[in-house]
């Protein structure tokens, strides 16, 4: 009889992949366009997992965004309760009801009021639903926990048969429907096996609490005739409704600008190929507590403000006022930028909400403020008490989101280096592989003091320095100083200063030593020269002596010869004067 009554309505949806967009952020991405149009979808999960919210948003968005009015038939909540709940998501159901875009029908069934005798069917339900559909020309239907009927009607045999007929009837009428169901015991998808009747699309919702932090998750268990994401996706119920965070559906297709941004520290820019980081890239600054991560982040933010860019700062450890005060102590005055509206600081406790809730807050703020630079300090706090495998995909999505918006981001990450187990390179959240640039800050303890060192562990797409620098925080700001490398290893801080002085002193000493050496050599040279002169003089004297002796000898010889001759003459009668001959 109903079939006859509704013959004038649209024929059933053609088979294939016609989809009905839900308008719910993320869900349409996972399902490749929405729920199967003209067919029922089962949404199940335990109490309080958000089934009703999902169903309601599906209806509201259908009515307001896609021109598809809808009927919400509820079996548990009253219309007033539902309206109040909807208001918390910012949906005005009353107005939509008045505009005949949405019809609400509360089906209340009291076991105690009902006596059962003989044969019956649920035609009354069909008529009610059909009436509501006709009244507003509905295209969408929600049956919120139809399973409540099992508690109200004792004859489950009839109920099951009628439910099967109901789902078929919805299909015949071309209604895109959401049927919610309670999660069953153990592995059962629903308590009463509704999945047996609604076989086209099954979505499960889950609400888990781990380490006192709750996360909601959504999974498309089944989608007949369509590709769909099979993962579990975190989702949120926020001020603007339902929001699913799909990760795998995002593509790696963001642009890669070549423009470079200064980090606010000239010498750090120098280490990063001389020009700083790429616009739209992500920078990770990791380090143990007190290594200066926040200061580096603030310097980065301040530099962007000075360029006239908008900056969003999310400190998760300090309040906004605290950040401004503390950064003032190292010469970074953030207050004027706050006043100018270039800088916004959104401080909150990381444990206040789950990670996903934080991400939603970040999304919303980013969309509203449209910053060029975002600083999150520290990202590791967001993943507090959560396993890496759980956190990494969500952070990946966040990083991708920033990249797609061409926002340059700086994340700080607290490492627990020094505890013995982790190396300083361990960065929480497993996010380092997602980052374009990774700066590591490390505390070095020696000579009774701790000093900060900075390294560039990686920086994609640029020739970066492989050296370490000392990271010096003073009231004049941040500076990087070359460290001393010597036989004693890397020297920093006072040791570096002392070593410098020591080197200078020894250099002077050496200089003096050289001069003395030169002098000594010069005097020796002079001494040698004097010796040479003396020897030469002596040689001359000896030569003169020798000449004199020779001539003396010659004279004596000739003299002797003359004497001999004179003697011989005299003996022979000669009268030659011997004296004159000897003088010749």
């Amino acid at each position, binding site marked *: 009889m109903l079939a006859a009554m509704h013959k004038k309505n649209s024929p059933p949806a053609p088979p294939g992949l016609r989809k009905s967009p839900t308008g719910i952020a993320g869900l349409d991405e996972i399902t490749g366009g929405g729920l199967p149009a003209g067919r029922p979808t089962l949404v199940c999960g335990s109490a309080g997992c958000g089934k009703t919210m999902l169903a309601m948003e599906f209806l509201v968005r259908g009515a307001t965004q896609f021109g598809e009015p809808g009927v919400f038939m509820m079996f548990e909540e009253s219309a007033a309760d539902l309206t109040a709940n909807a208001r918390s998501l910012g949906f005005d159901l009353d107005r939509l009801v008045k505009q005949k875009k949405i019809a609400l029908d509360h*089906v209340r069934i009291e076991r105690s009021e009902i*006596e*059962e*005798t*003989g044969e019956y069917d*649920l*035609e*009354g339900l069909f008529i009610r639903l059909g*009436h509501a559909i006709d009244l507003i020309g509905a295209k969408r239907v929600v049956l919120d926990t139809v399973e409540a009927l099992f508690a109200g*009607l004792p004859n489950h045999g009839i109920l099951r048969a009628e439910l099967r007929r109901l789902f078929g009837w919805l299909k015949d009428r071309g209604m895109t429907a959401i049927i919610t169901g309670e999660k069953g015991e153990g592995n059962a998808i629903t308590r009463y096996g509704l999945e047996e009747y609604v076989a086209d699309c099954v979505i499960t919702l889950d609400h888990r609490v781990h380490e006192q932090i709750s996360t909601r998750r959504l999974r498309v268990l089944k989608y007949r005739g369509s590709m769909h994401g099979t993962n579990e996706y975190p989702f949120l119920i926020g001020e603007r409704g339902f929001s699913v965070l799909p990760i795998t559906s995002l593509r790696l297709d963001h642009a890669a600008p070549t423009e470079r941004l200064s980090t606010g520290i000239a010498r750090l820019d120098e280490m990063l190929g001389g020009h700083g980081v790429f616009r739209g890239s992500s920078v990770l600054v990791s380090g143990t507590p007190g290594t200066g991560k926040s200061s580096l982040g603030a310097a980065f933010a301040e530099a962007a403000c000075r360029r006239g860019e908008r900056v969003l700062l999310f400190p998760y450890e300090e309040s906004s006022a605290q950040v401004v005060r503390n950064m003032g102590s190292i010469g970074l005055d953030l207050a004027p930028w706050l006043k100018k509206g270039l800088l916004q600081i959104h401080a909150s406790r990381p444990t206040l909400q789950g990670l996903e809730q934080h991400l939603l807050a970040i999304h919303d703020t980013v969309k509203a403020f449209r910053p060029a630079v975002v600083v999150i300090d520290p990202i590791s706090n967001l993943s507090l008490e959560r396993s890496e495998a759980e956190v990494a995909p969500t952070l990946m999505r966040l990083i991708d989101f920033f990249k797609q918006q061409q926002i340059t981001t700086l994340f700080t990450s607290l490492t627990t280096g020094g505890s013995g187990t982790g190396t300083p390179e361990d960065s929480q959240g497993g996010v380092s592989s997602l980052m374009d640039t990774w700066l590591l800050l490390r505390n070095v303890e020696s000579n009774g003091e701790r000093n900060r060192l900075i390294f560039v562990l990686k920086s994609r797409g640029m020739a970066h320095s492989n050296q370490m620098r000392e990271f010096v925080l003073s009231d004049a700001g941040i500076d990087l100083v070359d460290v001393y490398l010597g036989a004693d290893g890397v020297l920093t801080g006072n040791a570096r200063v002392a070593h410098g002085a020591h080197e200078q002193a020894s250099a002077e000493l050496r200089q003096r030593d050289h001069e003395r050496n030169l002098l000594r050599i010069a005097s020796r040279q002079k001494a040698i020269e004097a010796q040479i002169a003396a020897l030469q003089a002596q040689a001359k004297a000896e030569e003169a002596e020798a000449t004199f002796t020779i001539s003396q000898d010659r004279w004596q010889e000739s003299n002797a010869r003359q004497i001999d001759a004179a003697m011989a003459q005299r003996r022979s009668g000669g009268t030659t004067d011997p004296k004159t001959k000897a003088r010749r």
Partner: protein
Amino acid sequence: MSQPEIIELRLYVAGQTVKSLAAFANLKRICETHLAGQYRIEVIDLLKTPALAAGDQILAVPTLVRRLPEPIKKIIGDLSNEERVLVGLDVQPARP
């Protein structure tokens, strides 16, 4: 026996089906037997007035609703079991 109350009954049906006809016949018989002169029956065909279904929270058809005296009582089914109908209506069976 005190002043008998008038029992106001409404039978919701959806068209002239076997079940609805049976329910009506059964109801008529039971009322005549046990509530002669103390009852009023109104039959509502939801196919003609579907808007009325929500008012009395009708799901199943046929549904018999005892609107008066309060509290409201509902009996679903074709009313084939006389005893249960009487229990459901909170009516003492008349001794023949």
